[in-house]
């Protein structure tokens, strides 16, 4: 059942040219922008490309995951959801389908971004085990963000509304250690940047890739992701039943 719905969501991706463009080109544009345009002006103590690639990977993963909101709202505002709900399957399998497709899509686009980054001078020091750690962190983060997006997709009344959520997610990494070290920010912003989930997630990824100290970021990152994932998943199931039975 769920596999059929994953197939459906993946088909949607290939049908929508805009979506494909956003998934692959937006991350590449951001990568090149940061490395070549801002890179010269920001001093982080190491080669800036090494500093910034983990942040960009997560920015793109988060943004990609947030697109799930649009897919979900699209289903909810159209009649198709009634057809799925009148079948003897768990209606929420439609949501799982979107999330699984989102993870697959982001893994592909991340592989492309990392490939290009390696080509233009990104030099990670990660061992095979550390690369697996990065992959695990990424999948966990994408799952959490995708389910969170599903929640927003279920709350949104219009597809445009759901699109607004992506915008918010795109903005979140800027107020973290993704692109500049937090100690360079004004005090109030520093506080926000240090205590939001993106920072430990980015620090963990950076540590695994480059050998910078991770400290307690690792646990914090996993806790944040699992927390968001569990709460979002439960909320999504609840909202789905409620929204579609009225």
């Amino acid at each position, binding site marked *: *059942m769920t596999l059929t719905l994953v197939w459906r969501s993946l088909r949607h991706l290939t*049908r929508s040219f805009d979506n494909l463009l956003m998934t692959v080109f937006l991350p590449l544009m951001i990568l090149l922008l940061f490395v070549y345009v801002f890179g010269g002006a920001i001093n982080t103590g190491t080669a800036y490309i090494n500093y910034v690639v983990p942040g960009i990977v997560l920015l793109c993963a988060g943004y990609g995951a947030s697109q799930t909101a649009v897919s979900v709202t699209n289903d909810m505002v*159209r*009649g198709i959801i*009634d*057809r799925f709900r009148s079948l*003897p399957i768990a209606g929420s399998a439609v949501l799982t389908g979107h999330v699984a497709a989102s993870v697959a899509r982001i893994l592909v686009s991340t592989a492309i971004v990392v490939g290009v980054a390696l080509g233009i001078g990104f030099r990670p020091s990660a061992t095979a085990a550390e690369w697996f750690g990065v992959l695990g962190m990424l999948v966990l983060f994408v799952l959490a963000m995708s389910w969170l997006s599903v929640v927003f997709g279920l709350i949104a009344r219009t597809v445009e509304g759901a699109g607004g959520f992506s915008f918010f997610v795109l903005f979140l990494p800027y107020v973290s250690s993704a692109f500049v070290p937090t100690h360079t920010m004004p005090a109030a912003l520093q506080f926000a940047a240090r205590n939001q989930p993106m920072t430990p997630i980015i620090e963990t990824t950076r540590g695994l890739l480059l050998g910078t100290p991770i400290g307690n970021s690792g646990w914090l990152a996993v806790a944040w992701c699992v927390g968001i994932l569990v709460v979002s998943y439960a909320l999504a199931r609840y909202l789905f039943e409620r929204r579609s039975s009225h």
Partner: protein
Amino acid sequence: MIDTHGIVKTFGRLKALDGVDLHVQQGKVFALLGPNGAGKTTMVRVLSSLMRPDAGTATIAGHDVVRESRKTRSVISLTGQYAAVDELLTGEENLRMMARLRKLSRARARQRASELLEEFELVEARGRPVKNYSGGMKRRLDLALSLVTTPQVLFLDEPTTGLDPRSRLDLWAKVRNLARGGVTVLLTTQYLEEADNLADQVAVLDRGRVVALGTPEELKRLVPGGRIELAFGTEEDLRAAAARVPGLVEELRLSVPTDGSAGEVKRVLDALDGIELAELTVRKPSLDDVFLQLTGGRAA
């Protein structure tokens, strides 16, 4: 096959359904007839387990639609008022997806999709995304999706609204065929003609209440709206005609009450043999007439 008792559904202060009792036997076609806003769609959504009623109970093939929604869903198929198709997929992909969700094997799903594309005249469009389909094509695909596996109970919410006359006749034939094969069909319609043509039983729904229930014949007897209107060239012809068939005289016109059947028209014409007739019009009882009759003068 379908049994409901006192179904109530309110939206804020509006009572969309106000105590609906229905009983439909297996293999019968049942029509819910009513104007816009009568509560037809709400009733179908309750019966197909998409919406919980605020009060009352409903069972489909013995399964309670609220407490046993999974079981209910395994015996029903729904074609809603608005096409429930995946616009980004092709027609064939839609059918194959639905077949897989109905637990058909991959090979069987492909085969069933081909059969249905053939049956619903969508073969040429099979590889095109549905968003490029015409309204009629979407409606046909929508119905095909409901028939991927043969349900015990089929719900059709205004299935012919927006269809051209030929497609409407096709659909009527399909519905009759399904019922002959033992499928119980509950359809909603705004057209008395449709209920008349298809249904074994008709319930007239008005503001959430069943205001009349019976066979189409019984219903039409309630509604003396049908008449044959005859126009004549001269007063003499009119008087001669009025002497042979009783009716209402108005200027050079004679209006004869009728059930609108061909037999009645023939009887009237036979009776008027030899009198010159300028014009003949058959007026069937319309839904408006039903509502004028049943709701005491408030138009539909």
